């Protein structure tokens, strides 16, 4: 730098652009977000497994039984042990973002808090799952 300010007529700016490389691990919030998005991929993959089962169902009793047996295999059970908490996390994060997609909801003159909407959603999901489990338990011998 000179001993005086020399304004001149040229443009001395050199804006410094920072790279976005590795942005996702700069902040724990981003890591949580990516984990949430990653679970969506697993949900999609599991949907394919279920679609496969549906298809097997149309192919007759033997195919269906084979698909069920595959599900009960040790590898599959291990996979499901991992998938269960992943799905739970997915549901939780889904309900956490749900209030962001809704306009303000009023209940008895006051605005419902976003955390309340999330809690209600999770409660509903848990209730439905429990009901289904009980229903299936009643059906199975």
């Amino acid at each position, binding site marked *: 730098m000179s001993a005086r*300010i020399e*304004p001149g*007529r040229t443009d*001395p700016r050199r804006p410094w652009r920072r790279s976005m490389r590795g942005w996702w691990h700069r902040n724990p919030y981003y890591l949580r977000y990516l984990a949430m998005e990653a679970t969506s991929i697993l949900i999609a993959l599991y949907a394919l497994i279920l679609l496969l089962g549906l298809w097997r169902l149309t192919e007759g009793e033997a195919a269906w039984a084979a698909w069920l047996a595959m599900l009960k295999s040790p590898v599959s059970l291990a996979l499901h042990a991992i998938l269960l908490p992943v799905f739970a996390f997915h549901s939780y994060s889904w309900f956490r973002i749900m209030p962001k997609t809704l306009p303000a909801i009023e209940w008895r003159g006051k605005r419902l808090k976003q955390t309340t909407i999330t809690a209600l959603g999770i409660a509903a999901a848990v209730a439905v799952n429990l009901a289904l489990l009980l229903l299936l338990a009643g059906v199975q011998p």
Partner: protein
Amino acid sequence: MEIFESDVAIVGAGGSGLRAAIAVAESDPSLRVALISKVYPMRSHTVAAEGGAAGVTRDDDSLDYHFHDTVAGGDWLCDQNVVEYFVAHCAENLTQLEHWGCPWSRKADGHVNVRAFGGMKVERTWFAADRSGFHMLHTLFQTSLQYPSITRFDEYFCTDLVVDDGRCHGVVAIEVATGRFTFIRAKSVILCTGGAGRVYRENTNGGIVTGDGMAMAYRQGAPLRDMEFMQFHPTCMPGTGLLFTEACRGEGGFLLNRDGYRFLQDYGLGPALDEPRNKFMELGPRDRLSQAIWHEERKGRTITTPYGEAVHLDLRHLGRQKLQDRLPLICELAEEYMGIDPARECIPVRPGIHYTMGGIYANLETETPLEGLYAAGECASNGIHGANRLGSNSLVDIIVFGKLAGERAAEYARHAPHASQAAQMMQADDAERRALAVADGGGKERHSVLRREMSRTMERGCGIYRSADEMQATCDKLAELRERYRNLDVEDKSRVWNSDWLGALELGYLLEVAEAIAHSALNRRESRGAHQRLDGFEQRDDDNYLKHTLAYVNGMGPPRIAYQDVVITRSPPGKRAYGAAGESADVERQAQANHA
């Protein structure tokens, strides 16, 4: 030097500057407007104003009440013809803002709500929660985006007006990002640069409130009027000086001394009632309240904080619900900055500098004595605030007179005679040289040190109560600082965003404005409004001082002081009374008016 041709140049993009720009654009879309600001417009200090803007709307209110409240509030130093114009145009300008989307708080029936404010007889303060200035500024800024005739110069720092043959031809400005100079030529120029509160130490003002436009006009021979009247806001955060809005008191807050006593009743503002009552107690005018706090300190009845003596702002009885609804920003300030929950504890507050009543003399048409130069908003002294401004008169002042200034400047620009460029270019080059010389003084002084000394001496000599020897000491100190200013060393010699250099330029403005304040104060041998003396001149002296002070630049010497009559139309100077005394004074005045 780069030259930009415009028709109307506006310096400052706060409430008054934006309103003026819109007014020019609406009056004639073919006029090129250059809107110049040293910060992005939404950073302008209008944004910090909280309480509201006054405009007569209620059936039990009248322009006459607003007029009288303002004139009495100003301790009869107001130019009453201007106040007449002002009160008649408040509501319509506030309605215009509403039409542009300003989210005024509403009554249940959908009409705009109004609240009580200090020194006002009837509720007439329009408000947008407790962020009225913020909402007004953002409404104006966003509205201004629609007009293609407005070219903005964001982060351009003005250093000088170009004046030739008694006429203003534009401004010279530094492009902050590059350090390059631009001459923005214009047929008319409007100064909307705000106040100068940063000459003091403890103030509510943002860092940018450094009297730039005042000093620029002053240097070109325009007088600064009534500069001695600097408003202390009674309820500021000790230390930072951040503002706790008057609306706290409008909503029913109390001021208590260390004994939990509502001390204002001892100072002619009583009796103390439970409910807020206009012009009583905590709803008295700001100068009276600040003075009362000063007296309590002398009596040893204040609370000691690490940042000086304070009194307690008690909002506990308002309840959490009301606090959240009506005063959310206040709650945030108290909790985040002081760790205080206003629903449970009292908030220590002390007076801090808040508003500059004085400024560049501007007449009813917003014209300054320099041809082609207009001024509006806090940087102008057009006579509506007098010796003490009432809360909520400023936010509406900026739009009433911002609009008028825009219209007048536009008219002038349409018919302005042609002017030769050559002489102007020489001036512009000179301005560049001078601004650079500040940075390259090659001296030893640092502007942060000088600034600190300036703010301390202003606090000491030009505080709430003044005496000749202290004011003289401040005048002497300021002369010394101005001398030392010529010997500055600005360490930063770069071009890109050199805020060290800009800070030094701002100090130049501050020092000249400070001198105008100190000398104006020293010469006013009476007490009136925000200028109170303890040295034999404790009373108001209408015989000798029913006049405005004019301060004219005088080279490196102290300003030349002159006087100008106050315009009195229909309110002869009376007793300035509040509380119960105020009510009986009102009754008397009404009886006299009925008799006449």
